[in-house]
């Protein structure tokens, strides 16, 4: 859908480019004491400094796996026993990764909360030893230092980090429904103060090195080096080691102080935090904010607050106990399992299963400089691809170019790029009104108006001016690709690329292939999407493909509910409390009532009575009156610039009254309202798998969560069916079917799962 803006915090949190918890293969639980060969940790003594190097074999990242922890403990004991060693430097041998976190397989392999708690306690013990080390340990950080990796670093006495862009620190556990379970909830507040600690742990966001220094998370920064006598990555790590060794020696001879002198603000803050009443107020405020944002559907943030509170109010022993127990409990929650599943799905959807394309897309043309077209340009032009942005009118073109500029300028203001980088990036974007230069273009993405005849017209124009290898990608939300491809001389080069608006924020890209689309074309489209930083699902062609198709019956039901007199505000409340990031009525306004009407008609034509529900007349009347949603300022709500509160549009209410239907009491409870909406969504998703539109349940879940805002803690429609129980869902649907008819008929796949409870989409 052109305007789906599912912008809840929890649907945005999976942006991490870094591996938080890598699925590392070594799950070696039978530890033989005879094994002396170390594969993960090694060390050498330089003067009186022991340099310990971490390097997981056969993996791009280091994770805190069982063998690594075992070897680390051995090495530490040896170092401590060696009287000649006066200090330690801890460093990774991998160029872009310090330690990316705990090994998630290690946690997934546990069958009970107690097992996970035991793991957490192991970690706590190990880091306690590090913290109490008789000789100073300097953590030299280059690359990702996340989760358990950061907790490890926090336990060290001193931290030095490179200023590289790859260096990020953070505790992303909350995004997996977990908490920092190896002392993080206890050490962070002491190190950076209560407010910052909550910020770091509750958002799970990545913190860049310079910010980390400001917060007090690291002591010193080291600049990354350019190429010299060696490769810059290699030399940078060497340099980091040299500098860290220098600091280690400095700490021993007391020329480097371990504690930073505190500024006045810091002292004031510390003083305030010393007052129990102030702390209580902070807990309260933070809890309230979390409840606001999560509706209490996510247990992890609340547990994090509990752990911090226990540590500060009842002492660290209680704090550590609370942390390990809550960690165990959280690991067993369905929310955590769903979030971990999404994370793994996301990793899978960041790979190109169609192989490397024959040619890389170096020159891209985008037709239409609207919100979509400009958005696509924005996410492409800074990836080393030359982009032509073509429109038919100067006004549209200049608006589009401005949009791209604003996007990059915002990054300059946030200091994530320099103004110079913005300018060089912008110089790769050419705005134009004609087809000049299209003879060099490798791919064209059209984002013109959703009308088959217009799409045919541009397709023919494009094919007349582009080279034979050029791919024609159409950004449509509903028109079947094969219908568009019908006008093409080269249907093997035609593919659908369904972006979600706003393109720079929404992570999903739905790629649609027809029977004629060649594998190389698909590989090219996926490769470009990955370059743009998208999470990609590849689906078969059909009306509405996957995402639009799932959304349509739900919107039809929404309309029905509105006609039955459910207040829009109440509907929004019911849907957000179910876990949708945006209320369903607001979503309809965001998508655009006209778009919804247009898609609704096409979809009804294709699917007939399964799209029954509300009366399409309601929306067509609204469109006639100009209530096309947010973009027009009026839809079901009234939108005013600068004002955040939304009022109901009385004129839309009038229309709804005109089409009012009575609400059957047997299926109109709050919970029924929720399940009527959700069951139709989920049923349609399963139908897509049944019909082969989707190639697997995982892509279906990823598409629903990242494209449509399906509640992340449920993990997507397929995981939802597994967890909720297909039989229970079918029962509910039967009840609705009796009242409303066959739009609630459970599809065959759902019925099969209902009949045989051993059938699951995820093992």
């Amino acid at each position, binding site marked *: 859908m052109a305007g789906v803006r599912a912008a809840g915090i929890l649907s945005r949190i999976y942006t991490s480019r870094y591996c938080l918890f890598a699925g590392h293969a070594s799950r070696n639980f039978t530890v033989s004491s005879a094994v002396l060969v170390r594969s993960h940790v090694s060390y050498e003594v330089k003067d009186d400094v022991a340099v310990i190097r971490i390097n997981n074999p056969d993996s791009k990242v280091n994770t805190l796996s069982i063998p690594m922890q075992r070897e680390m403990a051995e090495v530490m004991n040896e170092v401590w026993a060696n009287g000649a060693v006066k200090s330690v430097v801890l460093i990774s041998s991998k160029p872009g990764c310090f330690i990316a976190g705990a090994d998630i397989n290690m946690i997934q392999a546990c069958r009970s909360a107690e097992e996970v708690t035991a793991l957490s306690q192991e970690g706590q013990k190990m880091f306690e030893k590090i913290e109490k080390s008789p000789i100073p340990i300097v953590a030299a950080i280059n690359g990702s230092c996340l989760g358990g990796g950061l907790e490890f670093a926090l336990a060290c006495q001193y931290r030095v980090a490179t200023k590289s862009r790859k260096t990020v620190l953070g505790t992303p556990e909350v995004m997996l429904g977990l908490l920092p379970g190896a002392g993080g909830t206890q050490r962070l507040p002491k190190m950076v103060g209560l407010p910052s600690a909550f910020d770091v742990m509750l958002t799970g966001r990545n913190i860049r090195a310079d910010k980390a220094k400001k917060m007090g998370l690291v002591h*010193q920064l*080291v*600049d*990354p*080096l*350019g*190429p*010299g*006598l*060696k*490769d*810059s990555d290699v*030399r940078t790590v060497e*340099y980091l080691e040299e*500098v860290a060794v*220098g*600091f280690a020696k400095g700490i021993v001879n007391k020329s*480097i102080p371990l504690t930073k002198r505190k500024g006045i603000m810091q002292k004031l803050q510390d003083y305030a935090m010393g007052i129990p009443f102030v702390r209580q107020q902070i807990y309260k405020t933070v809890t309230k904010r979390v409840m606001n944002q999560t509706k209490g559907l996510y247990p992890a943030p609340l547990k994090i607050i509990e752990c911090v509170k226990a540590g500060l109010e009842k002492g660290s022993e209680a704090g550590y106990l609370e942390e390990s127990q809550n960690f165990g409990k959280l690991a067993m929650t369905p929310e955590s399992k769903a979030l971990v599943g999404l994370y793994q799905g996301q990793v899978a959807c960041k790979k190109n299963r169609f192989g490397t394309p024959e040619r890389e897309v170096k020159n891209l043309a985008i037709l239409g400089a609207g919100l979509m077209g400009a958005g696509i340009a924005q996410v492409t032009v800074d990836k080393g691809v030359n982009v032509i942005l073509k429109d038919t009118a100067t006004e549209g073109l200049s608006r589009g170019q401005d949009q791209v500029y604003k996007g990059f300028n915002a990054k300059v203001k946030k200091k994530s790029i*320099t103004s*110079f980088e913005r300018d060089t990036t912008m110089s790769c974007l050419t705005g134009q009104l004609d087809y000049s230069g299209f003879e060099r273009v490798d791919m064209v993405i059209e984002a013109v108006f959703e009308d088959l005849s217009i799409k045919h017209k541009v397709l023919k124009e494009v094919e007349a001016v582009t080279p034979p290898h050029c791919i024609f990608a159409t950004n449509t939300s509903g028109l079947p690709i094969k219908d568009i491809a019908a006008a093409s001389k080269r249907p093997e080069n035609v593919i659908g690329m369904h972006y979600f608006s706003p393109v720079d924020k929404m992570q999903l890209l739905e790629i649609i292939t027809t029977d004629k689309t060649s594998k190389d074309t698909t590989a090219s489209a996926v490769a470009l999407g990955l370059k743009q930083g998208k999470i990609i699902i590849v689906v078969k062609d059909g009306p509405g493909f996957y995402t639009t198709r799932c959304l349509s019956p739900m919107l039809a039901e929404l309309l029905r509910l509105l006609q039955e007199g459910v207040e829009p505000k109440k509907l929004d409340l019911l849907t957000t409390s179910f876990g949708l990031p945006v209320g369903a009525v607001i979503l309809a306004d965001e998508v655009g009532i006209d778009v919804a009407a247009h898609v609704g008609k096409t979809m009804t034509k294709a699917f007939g009575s399964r799209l029954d529900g509300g009366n399409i007349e309601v929306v067509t009347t609204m469109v006639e009156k100009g209530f096309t949603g947010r973009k027009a300022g009026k839809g079901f709500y009234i939108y005013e610039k600068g004002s955040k509160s939304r009022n109901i549009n009385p004129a839309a209410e009038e229309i709804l009254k005109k089409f009012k239907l009575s609400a059957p009491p047997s299926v109109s409870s709050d919970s029924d309202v929720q399940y009527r909406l959700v069951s139709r969504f989920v049923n349609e998703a399963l139908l897509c798998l049944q019909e082969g539109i989707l190639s697997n349940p995982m892509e279906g879940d990823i598409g629903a969560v990242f494209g449509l805002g399906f509640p992340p803690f449920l993990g997507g429609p397929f995981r939802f069916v597994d967890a909720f129980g297909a039989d229970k869902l079918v029962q509910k649907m039967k009840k609705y079917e009796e009242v409303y008819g066959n739009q609630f008929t459970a599809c065959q796949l759902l019925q099969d799962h209902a009949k045989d409870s051993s059938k699951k989409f995820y093992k």
Partner: protein
Amino acid sequence: QVTNYVMVSAKKFARENLFSLLLVQTKSKKTLAKPGVKNIVLVEGVRTPFLLSGTIYNDFMAHDLARAALLGLLNKTSLPKDAVDYIVYGTVIQEVKTSNVAREAALGAGISEKIPAHTVTMACISANQAITTAVGLIAAGQCDVVVAGGVETMSDMPIRHSRKMRKTMLTLNKAKTLSQRLTLLSKIRLGYLTPELPALTEFSTNETMGHSADRLTAAFGVSRREQDEFAFRSHSLAKKAQDAGLLSDVLSVNVPGKGIVSKDNGIRPSSMEQLEKLKPVFIKPHGTITPASSSFLTDGASAVLLMSEEKALAMGYKPKAYLRDFVFVSQDPKDQLLLGPSYATPEVLEKSGITLDDIDVFEFHEGQILANLKAMDSDWFAQTCMGRKSKVGVLPIEKLNLWGGSLSLGHPFGATGARLVTAAVNRLKKEGGQYALVAACAAGGQVVFDL
């Protein structure tokens, strides 16, 4: 005072370009003369004493210094003022009032107003750019006698109002009524009054030069000790040259109210122990560059007289050297900022068909010279970064900067290029060599002088 020593905007002045020039004295080796190209000769080169900024030249504007160099050159060569065909000067931080500083200096020196003059800028090699511009004018037959030089003063710098304040003031110009003016004035906030200093950072990368230099030395593994030793060498050699009267290019300049200056005042030979005590100035606390291993802020001007060989001989001059060849190269401004000499040296040698061993005199700008020496001696660097089959080779340090360099003599950004050339020529004569190679970063290139 440490700040005085800090290469404030070194980065600004040493951009991504590199320069190298080959000078030749005709003796036993090849002449390197090119068929069909005029022989261009250096008749004489001079400079004002290079002084620490904020000292004796405190009240001078850049054109005053440039004029002093120009007049000194004319006096030394007894060149009639009407014999000059063209004047080119290089400068980096421009005084907006005298943006064409070459022209102001020429007019002030009493050179005919009919003689054109222009100013060029190319960071630390601005004067080299001025010289090669002159070479181009002579080679093209446009001119026979050209004065090229460079000037810089860091005692005075254009400090501006903030952009917001400037905008308000410019709008104020256009305001017609009192109420319009008052409205505009009422919009001025305290923050508007924050002055804007000349950029201390490279525009494209936002990194200060010193910072960049420190990263570069780390990338090439240049130790603190090596840098201290090199700084010590530079100051000691400069002191020796000064005492022995070898710096014959230095003019005596009368500074009104302050007397006559005839010596550089930045040469401070000290001991290794003292150097070891200095703290790093850019990357703290673990950087390796100290005030001693970076050039101090300097004021000064330089000038050279270039002619076609025929003209010089016709006017009765005995040319000091031929300017044979030069190249400018450009690199990534982030990681290769100060590596110009490494790139430019092999190029100019290849162009001239000679090798490193043939060169008798090396005059390199002392901006991270140690990293450059290591780069030239590295096969990895040659293959990976320069696209060459093998390393350039070991530069014989016993032929390098024997009369001091930018670390000890100082580095007035726009003027250094002409100092290097003159020093190379004078050393060629004194040491009896034939080829001299001049290289500088910020802009790169080298010239071969053949005498």
